[in-house]
């Protein structure tokens, strides 16, 4: 069992069942305890009216400023569209070798791309983003193995191509 534990912090409404499904697979991948916590912040403070998106860097800073034990990795889960100044959007981001990350399901929804709603696919994509960002907090870089969850994904089809699992090489690095 990993000495770390993971805290999934949700901002906005998420179905309990939905979060539990995510927690099971994240726990399996990192072999550590997962806690889920619902939180509230004033998101308008992070809104950029010019871009009509939410600032991912500031949200990450906010999550990271929460004082918790250094053995706890925190991932903020959002429903809003995230950006960083240099990129048009992000699915998520994390502090490499740090304790915090963020993920959003805004651009993971099929409806965003004019496709029919698919809840199962949405959960699968979110799990991959969360595991990917957590991987960075454990010091993992992008992996070139096409099935590894640490493969860099710049659009949703990319996320669908890879599995939600770490490849043997990345797994070893986490262990």
């Amino acid at each position, binding site marked *: 069992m990993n000495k770390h534990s993971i805290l999934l912090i949700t901002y906005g409404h998420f179905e309990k069942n939905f979060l539990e499904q995510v927690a099971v697979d994240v726990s399996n991948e990192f072999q550590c305890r997962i806690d889920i916590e619902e939180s509230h912040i004033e998101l308008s403070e992070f809104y950029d009216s010019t871009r009509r998106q939410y600032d991912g860097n500031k949200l990450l800073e906010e999550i990271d400023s929460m004082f918790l034990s250094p053995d706890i990795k925190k991932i903020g889960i959002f429903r809003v569209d995230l*950006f960083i100044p*240099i990129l*048009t959007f992000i699915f998520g981001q994390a502090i490499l070798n740090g304790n915090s990350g963020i993920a959003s399901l805004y651009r993971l929804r099929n409806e965003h791309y004019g496709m029919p709603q698919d809840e199962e696919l949405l959960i699968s994509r979110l799990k991959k983003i969360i595991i990917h960002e957590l991987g960075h907090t454990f010091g993992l870089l992008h992996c070139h193995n096409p099935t590894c969850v640490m493969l*860099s994904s*710049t*659009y949703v089809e990319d996320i669908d191509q890879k599995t939600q699992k770490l490849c043997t090489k990345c797994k070893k690095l986490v262990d």
Partner: protein
Amino acid sequence: MVANISILIVDDEESVRDSLFNWFIEDGYQVDRAENAKQALSILESKDFDIILADIKMPGMDGLEMHRRIKAFNKNSIVIIMTAFASVSTAVQALKDGAYDYITKPFDPDDLSHLIRNAANQIALVSENESLKRKVVALENVEDLIGRSKPMIKVLKEVERVAQSNSPVIITGESGTGKELIARAVHSNSQRKFFPLVSVHCGALTESLLESELFGHEKGAFTGAMFNRKGRFEMADGGTIFLDEIATISTKMQIELLRVLETKKFVRVGGNKEIESDFRVICATNKDLKKMVNNGTFREDLFYRLNVVNIHIPPLRDRIEDIPLLVDYFITKYCTSMSRGIISIDKAVLHRLETYPFPGNVRELENMIERAIVVGNGKEIRKKDLPFEEDSITNHTESLEDLEKKYILQILSKYDWNISRSAKVLKVDRVTLYNKIKKYDLKRKKK
């Protein structure tokens, strides 16, 4: 491959620098940041980057001007211009100045990813192209190895055998026997053949120049060191370094060389960063290194470090059966390069070449043939096209004693019978010269 690609981000906005830095770090690139053009140029003085991502609008010097300055001293860097104020004219200007591409902020993650991946592929292609070009040149030159004589076949078999290992090789042989060609053949037949063969003629450089040539130097290390420069050991990474005339290097350089050969690590002149390079060393000399070790002019430890495999190339006079082959080869080579029809050689001339001792070995023969083609009639190489002096050596009726007598008399006359000077030229002591004068009954002609 990604781990070897270095990226410099130049932007006056901290959030942009940090975002890009984190993005590239997660991809495994080596990344550095600069907040303006001045700082970037200063970083580039001490370190080379493969890709430079530069903002176009910055306080002070703008991205376009910085790009022009970078290109002035490093043509190989890929510069990508980025801006929040897209305009066709600036994009055209950037591309005209040789920028790799132009990208407008904010970037689509996929566009950025593709752009950098394409730039990395271009870097890999350029590097592969250079390495292949070097390989083609090396293979072309190896064709110059001509010989069917027993001693030469033995050398070629040795080349084939040692090429497979990574051991240091010393190639010995008289001047002009083709030591560098053998070094090339060893390299071209080894697993390092896709990497460079870097040659250094140690005898042609002073101690300080050789040090900077081998190890490289940092900017300002000495007067005239305007830029950072890679040394030959660094350039030979993955390949082979050929040190010609190794016997001429100073004692200080011998110590430095021994250390580098043992650790494969070194520091550039004026630098403090240790550089590692994976090279194979091949040396050549026309001197007797063992004798130099005994005399104390060559370090014993370095000798044993280098002398793992020794290939000795026989002089041309010991493989006269190769002379017709070499003559044919050089005739074809020079007639082709001078766009002339292939000419023949008179049989008597060929026989004359076979009896000539060739003190300058194959190089002398090659020069003779080239000269004969230039000055000849364009049909056949005749005796008068070759630079032989019709001296006493051509007269086969004279004995060794006759020749010695004639030569001593010639030298004595030249130096007006000054015994000390003549003895010095003849490299004998005065007593020996007196004995020879007495023996041959040599007498000074009265004026």
